[in-house]
């Protein structure tokens, strides 16, 4: 993004101007104070206390927001190593809410909230919803799953906070989703972008009269998407689509969101410090350079995560003030990942999980490829597996049985329905050194 957009796509409103439009100098001073508090809370967690002590860091040594760069990183594995609540800084009795990662496999990452955390989270969500056209008189259909996923209840609280009506349809069952849209005429839809594409296809192919639904806005989250998808859905349904960002490890949605000028997503800098680092040297990069987002929530009481390495790649823009009046920095869309994690229909999948599933069926694992595509609205995954002597039989029913078992194991491990395609021996590419087993043709680059 070079030029700044100066034309709003709809009316500009701000939920908490006292925080969102703070003069930058005050904002930086506030960040310094809050960062010191965050480090104080982190000192209650043995994991952080040990790391901080080793580095000679005490809360008193935090003088400015920029001191964040001296703090230790937190990685996804640290949550696993300290499962279930080892990174939590408060007593059980102070926890008011648990949410978790979508993790359909193994153990989720638990994200705990105190009453204050839940309260602030509602405002964070209200900020990007209001920023993206949602008004108290609106009805908002939530088609995110309600459950551990931070998206469902997070947005629910935000909508409640801003005073709009909640229509909690939850995920799945497109016919029912469309029925709700027609009968209760919500103005706003909340779902994953790929689900929006599916709903759009169903609406348009069903020959529905556009005037039978009242949608004006859609807020997307849970998976990366592109400007091309935005254009397709906005043109297809005649609505405005909005992007926001957040992750369970740092409290869920509400970290950043777009304003009506669409110059990237405004980072809620009163409550988060977002850095961009070089994923190899781990050194912070200047604004405007592409790297990995590293997030430090400043106000979270229950889970004071320091410098969380998101593995998401993007840019923080430094090209002047946004016309909306917010003084906060803006971040780009997610442009990629620094690890091999795939986000498929909103679910995080690592190729290693796929390998685990294959290993459970005869000796299917050694040679395979994962193909991810988006032929229609939804992501599709095909796992190509080379037939090995141990799994080959002259009986067709046995071969089909193996295929069925592979599909079942893949579902058990990833929670996703995948296609399995058996291919001849020695037909897949062989790798020297680091393998590239994933072929993603969804074109999610920005």
């Amino acid at each position, binding site marked *: 993004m070079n030029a700044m957009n100066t034309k709003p796509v709809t009316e500009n409103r701000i939920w908490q101007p006292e925080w969102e439009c703070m003069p930058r100098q005050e904002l930086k001073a506030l960040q310094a104070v809050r960062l010191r508090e965050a480090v104080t809370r982190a000192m209650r967690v043995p994991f952080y206390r040990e790391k901080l002590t080793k580095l000679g860091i005490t809360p008193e040594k935090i003088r400015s927001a920029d001191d964040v760069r001296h703090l230790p990183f937190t990685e996804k594995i640290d949550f696993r190593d300290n499962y279930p609540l080892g990174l939590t800084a408060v007593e059980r009795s102070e926890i008011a809410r648990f949410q978790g990662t979508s993790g359909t496999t193994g153990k989720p990452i638990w994200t705990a909230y105190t009453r204050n955390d839940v309260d602030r989270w509602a405002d964070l969500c209200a900020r990007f919803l209001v920023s993206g056209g949602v008004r108290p008189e609106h009805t908002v259909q939530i088609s995110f799953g309600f459950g551990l996923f931070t998206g469902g209840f997070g947005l629910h609280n935000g909508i409640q906070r801003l005073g709009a009506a909640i229509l909690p349809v939850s995920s799945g069952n497109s016919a029912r989703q469309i029925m709700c849209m027609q009968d209760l005429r919500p103005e706003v839809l909340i779902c994953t972008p790929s689900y929006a594409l599916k709903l759009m296809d169903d609406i348009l192919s069903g020959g529905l009269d556009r005037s039978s639904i009242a949608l004006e806005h859609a807020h997307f989250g849970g998976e990366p998407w592109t400007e091309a998808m935005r254009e397709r859905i906005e043109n297809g349904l005649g609505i405005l689509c909005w992007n926001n960002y957040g992750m369970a490890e740092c409290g869920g949605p509400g970290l950043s969101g777009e304003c009506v000028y669409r110059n990237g997503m405004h980072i809620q800098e009163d409550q988060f410090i977002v850095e961009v680092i070089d994923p190899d040297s781990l050194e912070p990069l200047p604004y405007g350079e592409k790297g990995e987002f590293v997030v430090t929530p400043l106000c979270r009481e229950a889970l004071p995560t320091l410098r969380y390495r998101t593995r998401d790649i993007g840019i923080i823009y430094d090209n002047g003030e946004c016309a909306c009046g917010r003084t906060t920095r803006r971040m780009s869309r997610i442009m990629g990942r620094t690890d091999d994690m795939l986000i498929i229909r909103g679910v995080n999948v690592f190729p290693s999980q796929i390998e685990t599933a294959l290993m459970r069926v005869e000796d299917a694992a050694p040679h395979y490829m994962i193909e991810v595509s988006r032929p229609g609205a939804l992501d599709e995954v095909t796992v190509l597996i080379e*037939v*090995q*002597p141990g799994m*080959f*039989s*002259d*009986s*067709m*029913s046995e*071969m*089909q049985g193996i295929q069925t078992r592979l599909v079942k194991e893949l579902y058990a491990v990833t929670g996703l329905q995948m296609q399995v*395609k*058996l*291919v*001849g*021996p*020695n*037909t897949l590419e062989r790798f020297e050194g680091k393998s590239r087993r994933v072929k993603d043709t969804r074109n999610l680059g920005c």
Partner: protein
Amino acid sequence: MKIHQISLFLENKPGHLNAICRTLAENQINIVTLSLADTQQFGIVRLIVEDWEKAKEVLEKSGYVVNVREVVAAAVADRPGGMSEMLEIIGKCGVNIEYMYAFALRHGSEAVLVFRFDKPDRAIEALKSAGRDVLDAVTLFGEAK
């Protein structure tokens, strides 16, 4: 009384079957008969050749996954009703046919049926006691020449 059948995994792509046949031809191995089972995605080719051990060796050397299975070959009269009589014997002894294929011999008035049974020994016994010819390799390949 059983004969060896080799089977190979086959991708549904042009030229794949021929590649197998070419490998056998280059090694002077004659295919007595073959059958194909296929889905939309892949197929299984099953072959009866005289020197199955050599065939397995050369195909594996060429990178194929080869499965060897004992099957039952039985002679059947090459006339209307011949097949049905045979199946009746098998049906009565409670054996299930997993798959089968047939081929006609160049000489004589008999055809050969190749069976994969779930209980091959019981089927062989039933066929024999009904007076049917269950062929061993020597007879089969002798007749095929």
